[in-house]
């Protein structure tokens, strides 16, 4: 099982993601700098969280137009699994790999706390470690996680089972429409989600509910 983590200037959860992938798979991911021409042959590409380019235009907008994203797009089209977390989710949206938009949190404030997530489609490479309807704990830490899509798009992604995770038990931290926390592309090999499963993978984190996302992914390809 091989993975790669793409790093843009301003990302800051790259180290968290690299640590999680290394701890769970036993192998360190390849680290790909945004200016690198080469994207190694891997089974999983991860775009971690942070503030790429300071989030100065719109979150993820500048990184999404980086040449490395053309490579990511090609691999996604070829069926490679692509995971974007937090700023990574924003970048995938801006790059057109996922539909909809992430707006400023309804509170207009950054929010870092633990929420509950319901696994709404356990039949994907990313969620196979969970069961349908399972409620897990997961932390969030973001300023712009308020998911929105027009009604046609929303009907389509809901109808096609493309909502992977939903905020549960009244813990929606940002005002996302339909409590959406993470969505998939049509082929279900691209997942974007706002919460940070990489920060809840061991007892030292106070729980390991995030671990199954990675172990499911990594186990499948092994």
């Amino acid at each position, binding site marked *: 099982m091989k993975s790669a983590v793409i790093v843009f*200037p*301003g990302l*800051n*959860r790259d*180290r*968290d993601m690299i*640590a*999680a992938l290394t701890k769970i798979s036993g192998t360190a991911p390849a680290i790909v700098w945004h*200016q690198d021409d080469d994207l190694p042959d891997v089974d999983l590409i991860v775009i971690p969280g*942070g*503030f790429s*380019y*300071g*989030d*100065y235009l719109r979150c993820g907008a500048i990184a999404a137009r980086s040449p490395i994203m053309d490579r990511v797009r090609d691999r996604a089209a070829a069926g490679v699994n692509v995971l974007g977390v937090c700023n990574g989710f924003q970048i995938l949206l801006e790059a057109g790999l996922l539909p909809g938009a992430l707006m400023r949190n309804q509170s207009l*404030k*950054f*929010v*870092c*706390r633990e929420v509950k997530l319901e696994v709404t489609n356990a039949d994907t490479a990313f969620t196979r470690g969970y069961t349908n309807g399972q409620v897990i704990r997961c*932390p969030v*830490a973001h*300023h712009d996680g308020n998911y929105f899509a027009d009604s046609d798009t929303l009907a389509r992604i809901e109808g096609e089972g493309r909502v992977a995770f939903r905020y549960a038990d009244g813990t929606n931290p940002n005002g996302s429409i339909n409590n959406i926390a993470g969505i998939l592309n049509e082929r279900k090999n691209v997942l974007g989600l706002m919460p*940070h499963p*990489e*920060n809840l993978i061991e007892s*030292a*984190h106070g729980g390991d509910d995030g671990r199954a996302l990675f172990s499911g992914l990594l186990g499948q390809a092994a």
Partner: protein
Amino acid sequence: MTYQNDIAITPQLVADHGLKPDEFEKIVALIGRQPTYTELGIFSAMWNEHCSYKSSKKWLKTLPTTGPRVIQGPGENAGVVDIGDGQAVVFKMESHNHPSFIEPYQGAATGVGGILRDVFTMGARPVAAMNALRFGAPDHEKTRHLVSGVVAGVGGYGNAFGVPTVGGEVEFDERYNGNILVNAFAAGLADTDKIFYSKAEGVGLPVVYLGAKTGRDGVGGATMASAEFGDDIEEKRPTVQVGDPFTEKRLLEACLELMATGAVIAIQDMGAAGLTCSAVEMGAKGDLGIELDLDKVPVRETHMTPYEMMLSESQERMLMVLHPEKEAEARAVFVKWELDFATVGKTTDDLRFRVLWQGQEVANLPIKDLGDEAPEYDRPWTPSVPAAALAADDIPQVDVAEALLKLMGSHQIASRRWVYEQYDTLIQGNSMQRPGGDAGVIRVEGHATKGLAFTSDVNPRYCEADPYEGGKQAVAEAWRNLTATGAEPLAATDNLNFGNPERPEIMSQLVHAIKGIGEACRALDFPIVSGNVSLYNETNGQGILPTPTIGGVGLLPDWTKMARIGFAAENEMILLVGAPATRGTHLGQSIYLRDLFGRRDGSAPHVDLAHERRTGDFVRKLIRDGVATAVHDLSDGGLGVALAEMSVASGIGATIVDLNDQDPILQYFGEDQGRYLVTVKLDPQGEEIMALWNEAERLGIFAPWIGTTGGADLVLGAARPLPVSDLKASHEGWFPAYMDGAAA
């Protein structure tokens, strides 16, 4: 462009630079002529209170700053303390009070940026941050706006930079109505053999400018921070810098990469008084001169004068002396991170600080004298007159349960969740204890069990009543909070916030607080390794409460054995360790008096440092031996509030048995020092608890069994049982309601 460097230096111009007439005379005597305009600016930057510590230096020298683990004490960008295994923790706390009052978001943001830069300048990757915030009365017209702006600014910078905020303080008092306090702390980890310093070495070596471009922001900022506020405060907005955490994050990564190449001889961040302070410091420390060519300085505005360039406080900039043969390698690192890299000067052997601009020499000053000859004052101070003790029978009465419920929902005690949920508290994946407990704890990456604990403490009410006892108490409380997690307190940083030192009664506060801090640090082997002084925190002659904030750092050999404040389980014995025979006695300066009766009288509680140390060592051993199941120190609000916080953190109630013959108000709300609540899972009739009590008695520590955990209510003796859910609602409710405009 013409630049008038030779304008007449009038007394008014000197005064506008914050220099006193005798200070100006000293300048003329030192250099043997009138200074140029640029030179006047340079002197004003180096000789203001903020950079020169001219009022406090005499007293700061009395603080203990060494110890077996101390690698670097005060005088560098941050203190460095050995944590074993070839690693060190690098930390400091610094104020950004004046800018944050003028422009709360940017003032607070750049305060965080500045302290992070101090830490990574020394070669350390920042791993934890805290901030101690003090605002005016909740019902003051500016307070909400300032809280909202400061908290957003702290979060906006720290979150984007990527450092977890693990602790801090938020306090309200009308005495901060005109001067809020923003004290930012940062800590980083470095290898002990890879610490970087500001002392330049070698003649003719390139002086390199790195990071963001220079603009006009912050020109004169350090001088502004060394003056009182008047009614013209709004006019000072342009002296506040603007932060760019994206550039800072890139600067961090670029500096650490550059340091790994071996190219760096000396490094200094451009903080207060920017290019001036950093260049002078590097040269003077290394007994070298520095020549700067301002035409090479990357600028983001046109027509900047030498004066503006030398005094700009634009953020995210560094100055380094590099090995010339590694210059190309160094440049490549900065090109990769898309940051400016410019050779702007060289080291010389003539001990002069020369500044060139468009072929003209605009300044030529003796570099050592700029720092060494800065004025140092022995300002007059009045004797300390501690507030009188309360009369023994002066115990205002109110129902114990009602009082506790009210205090839990008061602005002093209420949960700070509204604040800390705007900070990223878990980034880096190493946060073992997040805000809300006695201290923040992170694990040390690359080590199986080692952890670091962080806390920030001071009780300004006590300091006002008795600066000496208050200074002692601030240190003791920081030491106590670290101990309460099981950590061994290593060292501290002090951030001394006071009013105008030219007033003898304010100088007296500063002198006595430092004496108290020194006394406590010596008694507890808790040296001060870095710090910052912020004076002139006054508006229209009204000074703040004396606020010597102490940032403490402790070491946990095994974080899996650390203690937390929440009750661990039902049916556990609750011990009040370190208590006087009557559990609680001291109501003077308490939160009970201030917030329920509007009284600010009585003496500050006394700290018995020998007893403090014995008690702390005893509690730490109970934690490390796995005997203590939960620990919480007693502070504001005394026993009642501490019990309620342990209940709220766990959802588990407790039943406490009143002590006969002692007023319940004193028992539950007295703020006697050196006390901890410790729960143990032991048989009350068994041998183990007897052994514990025997050991406590041998050490001269009273550790009475005062009650038992369990149930859904907190029952304080004869008082009405309080559902933990009610306490929680009260505790969590105040802050969000206040910020929504519902409460004050």
